[in-house]
């Protein structure tokens, strides 16, 4: 190949590469835009419909009777927080414990089975988890209650927390564990004081995402927490929750209730967004 033909070849090649590069970049940007579109649309719609109802009363008062103006969903906001606390107690203890087990005892004969079942659990519909909580807790108590709702959400959280914990624990280099063993520390001590702190930010991120994931669940709460129009802090009685408010108010015939549903959705979406963003922000700063 002569020098001239080499140069010519190089030029056409460069053009083709530029075109391929521009095309590939375009496709990727488009894909990202498509991902963001629903989120932006949902947020815009909810803000348009709901932001007008967001006043102090919305966060502090009980619902007004249908047709009457004002009122709020304070009971459902508190109820959702209460459900999340119960769910986290169950989901985080069992989830993190199981995650640590599968990550740190890879030679244990039960680990492959546990990992498989945990992954399978992610695919189980949320409403089925509600059914499990119904059978376990509602039936023995003979009435709907908040505890069963929290348990159903906790069951949904478990596999997400297991996977997140498992993955971040396995990212901790084996050499760090060996350093601990070489100091004459027993295995549990190495796991608790060296490996878990090294993986903590990842575990907490996974936990927050799992909480955000279940905060918006309505289906498993329909026949567990059930919902409540009044204040109730007793987890053994029916309890209100934002997703249930959204569901009930959306299918009602009253326009004022529709607006409350939109406002509640906005609060829920913003809560989930803030949780996710805050988690990322805190740990991005810490990583630096």
């Amino acid at each position, binding site marked *: 190949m002569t020098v001239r033909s080499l140069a010519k070849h190089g030029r056409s090649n460069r053009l083709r590469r530029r075109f391929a590069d521009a095309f590939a970049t375009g496709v990727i940007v488009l894909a990202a835009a498509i991902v963001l579109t629903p989120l932006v649309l949902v947020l815009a719609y909810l803000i348009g419909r709901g932001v007008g109802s967001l006043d102090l009363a919305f966060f502090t008062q009980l619902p007004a009777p249908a047709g009457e103006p004002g009122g709020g969903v304070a009971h459902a906001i508190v109820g959702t927080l209460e459900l999340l606390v119960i769910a986290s107690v169950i989901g985080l203890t069992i989830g993190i414990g199981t995650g640590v087990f599968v990550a740190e005892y890879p030679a244990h004969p039960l680990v492959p089975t546990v990992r498989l079942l945990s992954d399978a659990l992610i695919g189980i519909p949320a409403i089925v988890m509600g059914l499990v909580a119904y059978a376990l807790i509602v039936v023995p108590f003979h009435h709907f209650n908040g505890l069963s709702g929290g348990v159903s959400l906790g069951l949904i959280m478990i596999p997400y927390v297991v996977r997140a914990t498992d993955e971040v624990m396995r990212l901790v280099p084996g050499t760090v564990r*060996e350093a*601990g*063993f070489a100091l*004459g520390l027993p295995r549990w001590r190495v796991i608790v004081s060296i490996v878990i702190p090294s993986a903590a930010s990842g575990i907490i991120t996974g936990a927050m995402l799992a909480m955000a994931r279940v905060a918006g669940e309505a289906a498993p709460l329909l026949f567990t927490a059930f919902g409540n129009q009044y204040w109730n802090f007793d987890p053994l009685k029916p309890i209100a929750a934002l997703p249930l408010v959204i569901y009930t108010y959306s299918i009602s015939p009253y326009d004022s209730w529709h607006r409350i549903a939109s406002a509640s959705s906005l609060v829920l979406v913003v809560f989930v967004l803030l949780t996710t963003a805050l988690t990322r922000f805190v740990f991005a700063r810490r990583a630096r």
Partner: protein
Amino acid sequence: MMRIADEVAVPEAQVDAVLDLHDVNVFYGATRAVKDVSMAVRPNTVTALIGASGCGKTTLLRSLNRMHDLTKGARVEGRVLFEGQDIYDRSVDPVAVRRVIGMVFQKPNPFPTMTVYDNVVAGLKLAGRHRRSELDEVVERSLRQAALWDEVKDRLNGPATGLSGGQQQRLCIARSLAVDPAVLLMDEPTSALDPQATARIEELLAQLKQAVTIVIVTHNMQQAGRVSDWTAFMHLGELIEQGPTDQIFTRPQEELTERYISGHFG
């Protein structure tokens, strides 16, 4: 000296060895990586294990404080006597073995979430010793022993990961020394470091051996020549030759040893 088992140890070999290996074999599954190695490690010396990559020197080193217990499929046969007590005896707790026989690894591995101070005392603190005055004392002593004190004394509460690679490795040495081991196993401790940091650690070894017996694996024959008193040459899992370092390097008895140290392979 801390006992590694409850029962009274009966000295059964020559008194002059801290570690006494008898027909040690290490298997990974069906593969025999170390074959019938017998040798004695004398107190307050530096013993170098040399040989080509894959010759089993690191595998042998890791059998000396039961690190293989943690590797799936690894198995050790034969006897390793520490002050007369077989560390593989059923009555012996591997955790106790590692408390008296410490290890420094190829890549510096400080605990990433801990400060310099906490790294040094990790072995004590996590074993339940919390008296501040005692810990302060151990931190200064260990860091001085590791020739790191002057460089880090003003940043003891800074993150360990903020130190340079060479400083991190000396921190790891200080961390090992803090639990007051009798033996320190070093697995190519300078292979990830630049020549200056390497020189500092080599200087350190000469002082350290007054307090602790050292077994060091190294790829670098000049390093073995500079730092060690005793050298063992391994090839394909077998211990080919061992002896005083100057003898191994100037008058090797085996042809294989001579070919290795003169750079014909490896």
